[in-house]
């Protein structure tokens, strides 16, 4: 009963959403602010409605209503309550509803703003976001109903939205339970983070389309959506990092990123989003790259939907084993339609979006920003090629050919290297006109100490030239960034006669975007240290040990002590835990406990590493196989992952940088007004 009610609420929400699309559209065409207001109210209604529907789904999940097929698929009696709540996004139908819920929340937050200086955007923002919302709701209504229930008919048991003729309701005793791999804390927050990132990008896209339709060609739309873009990008970044951390902790292959198509699907909107984040600054500061920003946000929106589609459709073979589904073609059609419509709109407005200034020098700040954009898009093209290459080769030659991780690493490494170099050079270049001489004068001071780093590394025994280049670039970016910050703070210290730290604090908080961006650049360099370490210097060994025997790896000695196995009946898990002693150069460092968890109801096994983590390196020990102590030994696989911790430290610094950048200012500094022919009302303070 309750399930039917939940479905009914979704159906009503769908109708309300369609109403808001139509009314907003007609309201704008007829110039009726009442109709637009009605569309806005309808839009605001979707959030409580979807929340109600989601609340019903969560209630069904928590109270073990296994007659509902979604509840049966993702929960079981043995699961703790918090996992049953998070099982909401543990399956396809639920995660589509989760997407819709987030979108409705964000759109509501946007429609509730004041709209004083950009009221003409309102109907179009509603149209775009509500069309997106209607699409996701229709997926739930017509293809993946989270409220479908089991019925026994002549042809067997199946899930139906409505009771079939002669169907007898069926209630299974217990559910199948959430995939144990997904029961990790990282996995509980990783999908919502990614989804928050995905969904937030819909808002800047909606404003971009609104700007195109209304013909307002100033930077109003990027200014309004600046924080949305920042937060979208933050969540997407954190989602990616958390996914990596989860893989490192749970999947037991010693790594964090495998260039799996689904990972790339989440990485691609991040790439175009990163390019967008940088190039909107050029539009705001110089009135340039207007076409480019439109292209980037349209691309990002398409990639967001494409990312959701790839993870949800099973179109590509992937370790993220999601079921095949009928929603694939629908997603494809939706992406195609929205993309073609957006690009047509852009073509129509193309002549109006002329740059207000010309690019004067190849070495100017704006030229470097453009180069940064092109490089991010190059990585995107590489990734896209890798993902679709099997499909292309199959269509053209009939032979399915795939490219593995070596493809992505080989093709992307030089591009990432160039991006790092750019990250160092660009902040010291000047706007407008800049020459090699002025740039060189600014750069030589931080470059010299940066050169010391690879030299010292070489003397310390590092001979891998990729690593030496990488270390140089990391040092270069960090020194340039610190040097520029120091120079700025010194100048302010002298001018204002303040203490150095006061000057530094005031300088940074008056210019959050610049100095927050610097902090984020440094965080990226810390991550790069971790990535260089694990990618270039990871070593591994494996072997079967009798009790008391040991394995050697990179100066570490791992001695097998004992293994024990026991059942936890309540949780339905068998644990096998080995105890190993770790020594380095003869010195005892401690015990580690690699584990194998075997889940009875799903017959699934997880290999949990024993991990010793330091700033220098990680020792990552897997228990692979074992026999009872008397009969034989246990098999271990050991990875030595140098420097990998800097990847996680870097992500914490990243978060700090993002918080600093997007922190609301107490007294917003007035935004310089640039004369633009299409500005309808002069903008004062934002």
């Amino acid at each position, binding site marked *: 009963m309750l399930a039917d009610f939940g479905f009914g609420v979704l159906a009503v929400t769908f109708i309300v959403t369609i109403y808001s699309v139509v009314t907003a559209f007609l309201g704008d065409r007829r110039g009726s602010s009442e109709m637009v207001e009605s569309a806005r109210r309808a839009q605001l209604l979707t959030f409580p409605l979807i929340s109600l529907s989601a609340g019903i789904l969560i209630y069904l999940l928590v109270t073990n209503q296994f007659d509902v097929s979604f509840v049966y698929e993702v929960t079981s009696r043995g699961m703790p309550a918090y996992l049953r709540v998070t099982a909401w996004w543990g399956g396809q139908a639920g995660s589509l509803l989760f997407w819709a819920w987030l979108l409705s929340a964000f759109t509501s937050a946007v429609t509730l703003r004041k709209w004083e200086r950009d009221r003409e955007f309102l109907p179009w923002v509603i149209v775009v976001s509500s069309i997106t919302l209607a699409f996701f709701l229709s997926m739930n209504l017509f293809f993946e109903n989270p409220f479908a229930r089991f019925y026994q008919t002549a042809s067997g*048991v199946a899930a139906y939205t409505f009771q079939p003729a002669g169907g*007898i309701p069926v209630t299974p005793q217990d559910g199948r339970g959430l995939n144990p791999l997904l029961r990790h804390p990282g996995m509980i927050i990783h999908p919502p983070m990614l989804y928050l990132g995905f969904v937030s990008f819909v808002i800047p896209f909606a404003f971009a389309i609104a700007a195109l339709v209304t013909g307002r060609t100033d930077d109003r739309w990027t200014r309004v959506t600046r924080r949305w873009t920042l937060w979208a990008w933050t969540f997407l970044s954190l989602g990616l990092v958390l996914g990596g951390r989860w893989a490192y902790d749970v999947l037991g292959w010693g790594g964090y990123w495998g260039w799996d198509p689904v990972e790339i699907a989440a990485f691609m909107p991040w790439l175009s989003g990163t390019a967008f984040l940088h190039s909107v600054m050029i539009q705001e500061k110089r009135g340039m790259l207007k076409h480019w920003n439109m292209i980037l946000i349209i691309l990002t929106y398409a990639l967001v939907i494409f990312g959701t589609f790839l993870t949800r459709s099973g179109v590509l*073979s992937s370790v993220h*084993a999601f*079921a095949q589904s009928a929603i694939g073609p629908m997603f494809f059609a939706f992406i195609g339609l929205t993309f073609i419509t957006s690009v047509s709109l852009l073509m129509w407005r193309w002549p109006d979006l002329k740059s207000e200034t010309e690019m004067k020098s*190849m070495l100017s700040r704006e*030229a470097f920003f453009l180069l940064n954009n092109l490089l991010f898009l190059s990585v995107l093209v590489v990734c896209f090629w890798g993902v679709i290459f099997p499909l292309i080769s199959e269509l053209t030659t009939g032979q399915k050919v795939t490219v593995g991780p070596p493809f992505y690493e*080989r093709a992307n490494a030089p591009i990432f290297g160039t991006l790092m170099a750019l990250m160092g050079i660009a902040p010291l270049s000047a706007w407008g006109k800049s020459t090699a001489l002025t740039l060189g004068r600014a750069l030589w001071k931080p470059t010299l100490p940066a050169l010391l780093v690879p030299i010292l590394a070489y003397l310390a025994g590092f001979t891998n030239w990729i690593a030496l280049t990488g270390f140089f670039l990391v040092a270069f970016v960090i020194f340039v960034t610190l040097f520029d910050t120091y120079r700025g703070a010194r100048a302010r210290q002298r001018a204002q006669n303040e203490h150095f730290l006061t000057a530094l604090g005031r300088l940074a908080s008056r210019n959050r975007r610049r100095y927050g961006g610097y902090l984020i650049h440094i965080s990226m360099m810390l991550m790069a240290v971790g990535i260089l370490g694990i990618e270039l210097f990871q070593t591994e060994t494996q072997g*079967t040990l009798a009790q008391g025997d040991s394995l050697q790896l990179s100066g570490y000695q791992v001695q097998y002590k004992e293994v024990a196995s026991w059942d936890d009946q309540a949780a339905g898990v068998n644990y096998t835990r080995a105890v190993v002693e770790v020594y380095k150069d003869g010195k005892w460092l401690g015990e580690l406990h690699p584990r194998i968890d075997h889940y009875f109801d799903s017959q699934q096994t997880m290999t949990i590493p024993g991990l010793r983590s330091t700033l220098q390196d990680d020792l990552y020990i897997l228990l692979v196989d074992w026999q009872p102590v008397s009969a034989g030994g246990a098999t271990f*696989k050991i990875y030595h992952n140098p420097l990998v911790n800097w990847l996680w430290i870097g992500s914490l610094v990243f978060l700090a940088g993002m918080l600093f950048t997007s922190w609301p200012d107490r007294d917003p500094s007035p935004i310089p007004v640039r004369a633009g022919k299409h500005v309808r009302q002069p903008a004062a303070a934002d």
Partner: protein
Amino acid sequence: MQRTKFILGGLFILAAVIYLIVSSTQASAEYFMTIDEVKAEGGSVIGKSLRVSGAVVGDTIEYDPQSLTLSFDVAHVPGDNADIEAQGGLAKVLHEAVIDSTRARIKVVYTGPKPDLLRDEAQAIMTGRLGEDGVFYADELLLKCPTKYEEAVPEQVEG
């Protein structure tokens, strides 16, 4: 003048990216083949980097924990998802592949710890090379067990 410079710069980046993509694709292409195709091609694929998918035949799994040598036979399954769906889903296709002794089979050798998911009627996706001896030497082994997680319908039910 400036314009020409920018266009040249853009063309340079474009050329560099195309070079990176083409050369990396050639260096790391893996041919996705079914076991029937591997058998039919015979000698011509020896030494090429292949990606082969098949159904694990449980009786043939052998594992030596001392040398970490794992070997098992895989039976042919269709390479196309649509074909698999048309034949009743992955679980059914894998099951039929294993019980049908007339299916093309290939022996796989892999060095490394035995994966948790390796069992009868699992789908193995292997990357590696075909040796002169007709054995597939896998460098990488991915396993999928559809039986539990893709069944949308409960097994035992009460009316």
